[in-house]
Structure formats: structure tokens, C-alpha cells
């Protein structure tokens, strides 16, 4: 009799415990989903920004269009496919999609870094020449001053000051670029 009842209790427990565990698991999952949803909402903004940026530039990146203008026009490269986190895309399962995207991003990053380095090196070399030209222009302007009208001199002087400011900005940008690269 005792044995029978203990077997019944055991069986009852067997049925109840997994169900309970599953319920707890579901509750936890729901909580996690809520947290994840909140996170996703935050991440969505970043992801949207990424999409917009990806749309803006085509895959080969920097920096000028064929007609020599800086790239500002929008080119859709992903045909409007989204990049929301944790979703299945392009026939790939979630994890594979993420892995593929990270791999592509790494490749893209390596390419861009190389191109970026080339650009930075070119302008690093150009910097002393520009500085020298600026110095020469300053000297030349002072030499020309007697032959120039006050207005013409003032116009040139303003341009020189602007050029000097731009030179400082350029040096700063190159410094930032060097920090990224080295």
C-alpha cells in the first residue's frame, strides 16, 4: 500500500515538475524578450542609421564620384533589405546571417582601412607643401601690399586668414586619422 502510494506521488511529481519548470522557463523567456525588445528599440535607431549610411555609400566607398564631386547622392545598395537584429534574412538562418554580415563588415573594413591609409599618407606628404605655400602667400601679400588697394588687400588678407584656419583644421583631421590608423 505504502509502495503504491509513493509510486503515485512520484508519478504525480514527475508530471508536475517539468510543467512547472517549463512555465518558469517561459516566464523567464518572456522577461528576456521584453528586455530584448527594449534593447532592440534602442538598437533599431543605430541600425537605421547604419542602413541609411549603407544606402548613402556604395560598396567601394571613398570618396569621389566619377564626375569628381564628393559623394552626397543616395545610392540604394541593399535593395531595401533591413538589418534588424535577430531576424532571418536572405534565406540564411539568424546566426548564419549575423556571421555573414560580420564577415562582410570585416572585409569591407579592411578594404576601407587600406584606402583610408592611402588617402592619409598622400595628404600627410602634401601638408608641408601646403604650409610652405601658405607662408609664401603671406610674404607675397605683404610685398604686394603697396601696389594693392586697401579693399583688395583686405579681401586677400581675409582669404589668407581663412586658409590658415583651414590649415589648422586639416592638421587636426590628419592627426585624428593617424590616431585611427596607428
Amino acid at each position, binding site marked *: 500500500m505504502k509502495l503504491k502510494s509513493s509510486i503515485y506521488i512520484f508519478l504525480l511529481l514527475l508530471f508536475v515538475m517539468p510543467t512547472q519548470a517549463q512555465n518558469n522557463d517561459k516566464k523567464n523567456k518572456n522577461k528576456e524578450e521584453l528586455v530584448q525588445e527594449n534593447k532592440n528599440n534602442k538598437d533599431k535607431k543605430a541600425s537605421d542609421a547604419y542602413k541609411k549610411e549603407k544606402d548613402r555609400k556604395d560598396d567601394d566607398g571613398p570618396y569621389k564620384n566619377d564626375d569628381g564631386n564628393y559623394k552626397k547622392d543616395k545610392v540604394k545598395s541593399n535593395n531595401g533589405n533591413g538589418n534588424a*537584429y535577430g531576424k532571418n534574412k536572405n534565406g540564411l538562418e539568424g546566426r548564419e546571417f549575423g556571421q555573414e554580415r560580420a564577415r562582410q563588415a570585416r572585409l569591407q573594413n579592411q578594404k576601407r582601412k587600406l584606402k583610408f591609409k592611402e588617402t592619409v599618407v598622400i595628404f600627410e606628404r602634401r601638408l608641408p607643401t601646403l604650409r610652405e605655400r601658405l607662408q609664401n602667400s603671406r610674404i607675397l601679400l605683404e610685398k604686394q601690399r603697396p601696389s594693392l588697394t586697401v579693399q583688395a588687400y583686405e579681401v586677400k588678407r581675409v582669404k589668407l586668414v581663412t586658409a590658415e584656419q583651414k590649415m589648422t583644421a586639416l592638421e587636426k583631421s590628419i592627426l585624428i*586619422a593617424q590616431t585611427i590608423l596607428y
Partner: protein
Amino acid sequence: MKYLIVLSFLFLSLTSCNNDKQKNERLDEEEQIAFEKTADSLAMVNREMDSIATTIQETSDEIDSLLNDIDNN
């Protein structure tokens, strides 16, 4: 009685399998999100590099043009 015990074990193993599956799915999803975040970080770095390179080129061109204006009457 025996059948009941067998059935309960079957049930137990099924639920544990289901739990494992859910766990794996969640792990997969977490991994995917991690991968995608890595991709986004790299994209951000790319963007930053592009923006700096464009600024450098534009600024340099502007300086050139200003110096030309100053040097030429």
C-alpha cells in the same frame, strides 16, 4: 502501472529535449545579435574613416583654391 512509468519517463525526456531546443535557439539568437553588433561597430568605423577622408580632401582643396585666389591677381 509499468506503462505509466514508461510514459512519464517519455514525457520527461520530451520536455527536456524541448527545453534544450529552446535554449539552443536563444543562444543562436544571442550569437547572431553579437555578430550583427560587431558588423554595426565596424560599419561605424568605416563611416568615420570615410567622413575624415572626405573632410581632409575637401579642406585641402579649399586651401588650394584660397591660396590660388591670393596668389593670382
